[in-house]
């Protein structure tokens, strides 16, 4: 594995290996005073974020630092990126400057794929930290890690992904990964927020959250982005919340063991009731915690092994 660009087509065995590594790392570091492993000493990891995202960038940065990699953050504001340098030139510059891995967040779908293409033959790997509406593979991996921890296994579990599936890279990555790991996935959204051709995805589709809740093992609430609220995808935030928000009443329809996930940042009240978000059955802070271990595992799998023959 040289790049992690998407969960689409990711070998389930490979995904499981990453989750196992994350699990081991989590247990290894549990309760330790010094949370630092020497594993990636001398390796240079660059995070390149063309969109603001404190949580993902910090998570990757902590993961890299706990593995002793040198982590350098490039943000679109404070570098030549802001001066109109092309993505390609920036990537080649970072590679030439010694980056072993570039972690990229970009508003254009496919940006990470393009980057991997341009870096072909340079030895620099690429991790997709979210590209447009395409994928966010480490988010799906950390969701899977959290679900596995809470539910024991993912195979055979019924998981709903609720909300703006159309624009969500988190949803796409989760659909690929969770179904590859054997889960039944149901997408719950208004038709305006479902992608074209969703019938051909290995999922079922519903517009009735209440009807789905009693049979679920987990429910993953998606973020409704502010710009979508005014895009005419649904009449009003209030109506959305009534139909697709995880209210306290809806929460009682879930089975006792069911887990609530949210990739954050949350819109309390509209997407999810505060009491639900703060309940012990919500795994939202665990998701963040697991995010670090999953990203450490990803760094380990991408950077620790021998370089593949060119």
């Amino acid at each position, binding site marked *: 594995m040289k790049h992690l660009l998407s969960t689409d087509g990711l070998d389930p065995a490979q995904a499981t*290996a990453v989750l196992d590594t994350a699990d081991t*790392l989590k*247990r*290894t570091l549990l309760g330790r005073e*010094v949370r630092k*492993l*020497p*594993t990636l000493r001398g390796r240079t990891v660059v995070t390149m974020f063309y969109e603001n995202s404190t949580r993902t960038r910090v998570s990757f940065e902590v993961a890299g630092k706990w593995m002793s990699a040198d982590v350098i953050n490039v943000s679109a504001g404070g570098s030549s990126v802001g001066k109109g340098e092309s993505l390609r030139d920036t990537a080649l510059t970072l590679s030439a400057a010694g980056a072993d891995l570039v972690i990229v967040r970009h508003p254009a779908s496919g940006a990470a794929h393009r980057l991997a293409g341009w870096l072909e033959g340079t030895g620099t790997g690429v991790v997709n930290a979210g590209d447009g509406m395409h994928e966010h593979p480490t988010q799906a991996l950390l969701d899977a890690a959290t679900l596995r921890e809470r539910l024991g296994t993912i195979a055979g579990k019924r998981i709903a992904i609720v909300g703006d599936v159309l624009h969500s890279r988190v949803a796409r990555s989760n659909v690929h990964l969770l179904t590859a790991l054997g889960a039944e996935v149901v997408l719950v959204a208004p038709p305006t927020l479902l992608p074209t051709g969703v019938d051909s995805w290995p999922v079922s589709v519903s517009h009735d959250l209440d009807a789905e809740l009693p049979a679920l093992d987990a429910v993953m609430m998606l973020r409704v982005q502010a710009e979508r609220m005014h895009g005419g995808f649904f009449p009003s935030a209030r109506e959305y919340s009534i139909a697709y928000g995880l209210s306290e009443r809806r929460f009682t329809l879930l089975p006792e063991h069911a887990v609530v996930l949210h990739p954050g940042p949350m819109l309390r009240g509209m997407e999810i009731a505060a009491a639900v978000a703060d309940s012990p059955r919500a795994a939202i802070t665990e998701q963040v915690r697991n995010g670090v271990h999953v990203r450490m595992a990803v760094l*380990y799998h991408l950077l620790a092994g021998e370089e593949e023959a060119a």
Partner: protein
Amino acid sequence: MAPRVRGATDPAERELLSAGDVARTIARMAHQIIEKTSLGSEGHRPVVLLGIPSRGAPLARRLAELIAEFSDAAVPVGALDITLYRDDLRRRPNRPLESTTLPEGGIDDCLVVLVDDVLFSGRTIRAALDALRDAGRPAAVQLAVLVDRGHRELPIRADYVGKNVPTSRAEEVHVCLTELDGRDGVYLRREADQ
């Protein structure tokens, strides 16, 4: 990853220790540990056995059982994976991590006996010492190995050695343990021509 199966007898393979030899050797090592650490005597320092996966872990458990049998002292056992501390990670294909499990009471101020199957270059033990430093602060560290095959590359020696085996670098020492391989035995094998 499934454990590598070290099973079928190979004509290029020479038996160094039979199943009976392995049992006797481990028993002798258990006695040596009791003696050298003054286990069972009043005021002895707490002892912890930490096996290095994969084969050091069951060895450590067997030693602990025998120590309990011979001395009535219950010795806590754990496992210490050193993969994340290896200095040769980039020279080999990616490997899965094994479990690190420390005893409930931790290892601070204990006498830690590291247990491994084969002592060769010493690099594994150096990595284990690094890993140990991150896991706690033992009072002292000792090393127990079933086989010492020589060719040290670092100033490391074992405190307890089951069997010293002179080898050439082209040879491999295979340790089989019932827990992982279905049977006990130690074999010497010439590496196939590559």
